[in-house]
């Protein structure tokens, strides 16, 4: 049964069609990669799925229920949790409080949120900075913190937008290991990344977008060998 269905979603900014009848679905427990050249519409799609942008046409379903047009907080409460490409944290709050916001807002008690935040911080190797304000953390630590906030309460689907961008390899491995473990436990993911080795390693299936359209949706190996995908990335001559 599909967890998330994206059905002919379109979104324009003025004359630019950022999403053009984009359609695909993600089954429960699947880890799907989303790739495409810059400006292909990946982040716009994540913004639509997480309620930060309203689509012009098309529909989105979560567990067969329409969720288009819902506000971000309502979608988060339904289990659609996202990570931003440009990290968004609460700079004047400690790392542990940053995580507790996500837990408490999704309905767990403050005591339980504190317990889970400590566990997550330990799992992500952030123990030494847990009491520091997020504004004092490095870019990589902030990425890990935002990543962790998606998992305070197991999400129905985690939308991860470029989690590995500008991150030290050791932190990248921490995140990749975490994704691997959660996926093995049945967690559903949509993972946007330009990091092909990680996509190949983590994602059995990959969707490729170009100019707002879905141009390939197959196993990751097939997608990366697809001439249409190669052409989108490297130009006609390479294909």
């Amino acid at each position, binding site marked *: 049964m599909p967890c998330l269905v994206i059905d002919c979603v379109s979104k324009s900014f003025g004359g630019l069609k950022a999403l053009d009848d984009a359609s695909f679905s993600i089954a429960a427990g699947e880890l799907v990669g989303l790739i495409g050249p810059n400006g292909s519409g990946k982040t716009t799609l994540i913004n639509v799925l997480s309620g930060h942008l309203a689509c012009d046409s098309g529909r989105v379903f979560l567990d067969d229920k329409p969720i288009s047009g819902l506000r*971000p907080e309502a979608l988060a409460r339904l289990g659609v949790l996202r990570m931003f490409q440009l990290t*968004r944290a609460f700079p004047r*709050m400690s790392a542990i409080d940053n995580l507790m*916001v996500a837990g408490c807002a999704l309905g767990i008690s403050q005591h339980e949120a*504190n317990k889970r935040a400590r566990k997550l911080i330990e799992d992500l190797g952030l123990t*030494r900075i847990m009491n520091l304000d997020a504004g004092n953390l490095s870019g990589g630590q902030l990425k890990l913190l935002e990543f962790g906030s998606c998992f305070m309460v197991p999400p129905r689907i985690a939308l991860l937008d470029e989690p590995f961008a500008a991150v030290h390899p050791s932190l990248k491995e921490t995140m990749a290991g975490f994704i691997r473990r959660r996926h093995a436990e049945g967690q559903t993911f949509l993972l946007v990344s330009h990091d092909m080795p990680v996509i190949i390693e983590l994602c059995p299936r990959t969707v490729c977008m170009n100019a707002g359209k879905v141009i390939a949706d197959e196993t990751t190996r097939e997608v990366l060998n697809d001439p249409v995908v190669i052409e989108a990335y490297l130009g006609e001559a390479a294909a």
Partner: protein
Amino acid sequence: MVANKSSTSVRQRVEFFVSLGILALIAVLPTMVTNAYWQGVVIVSMYFAMLAAAWNLLAGYTGQFSLAPATFGMIGAYVTGLLSYYYGATAIVGIPAAVIVAGVIGLSLGRIVMRLRGPYLALTTLSFAEIMRLVISNSIDITRGDLGLNVPGIFQGRLAYYYMMLAVLVAIQIGLYFLLRSRGGLYLRAIRDDEIAAASRGVKIVWWKTYAFTLSAAISGLAGALYGHFAQFISPELGLLSQSGIIISMVVIGGLGTLVGPIGGAFLVYVTSEFLRDFGGYQLVVFAFLVIIFGRFFREGLWGLLRAAFGERRSLPPVVQAASE
């Protein structure tokens, strides 16, 4: 509420106890300052401290810059004043009514303005402040307009007012401290830091902003009502924009977004303004200048400067060390 040793939590606890320390000093002050005039100055400072704490909840902890902090004080004062004037209601009825009416008006306005941000929010609250003041000023048949309204006192002696205001201010501080340590406090600070991130984590942005606006209005209404019964005379001047400016300057100078800032700032600014009284309107210029200086160079106000001088210097090396790892 959870035992938490995070920087935020420790900071809040220190701020809370320092603010209680300041209030404890205020409590013993009448044993040294027996002059009724100066006791009155401290009582009015406590009125401003309540308004400043209420505005700080909104601007300092929720990031919503309202320009109507004095207006809700004026509304509270007029509710109890008018109830007393027309129906002979005592303070026991008037003060709770002031809190409820100010809170309900805050809730109604909050429902509208809390979907706005930045300059739009500031301009809307500024318009509301001026409309309310002009309505009270021009409704001469009802409010006696600029002639003002006599409000019956509650006590005979000044010291009784002194300790009543102090007790309410302590209660407000305790209430704010527990609010900030609750999940609501987490949400308000998250909204202040990044509304979009807070929404994406499931925080009901508009609901919590409206909650803060309503609570801030109700506290201001309470302060205004208490002030009305103490001063025994109220006028639309309570809602002047310059009054809001003074409240904002108290918070900015004391320390925006801190529990101790509004308390320290209110006493410092109001007592100083008494010393500058001979300079007339120029005292406002001094405070405006200080707001610019603090806004530009010392964002956490005097409390931030004190923290930097005593606390942060000691904690800096481990912070830097941990952050760099």
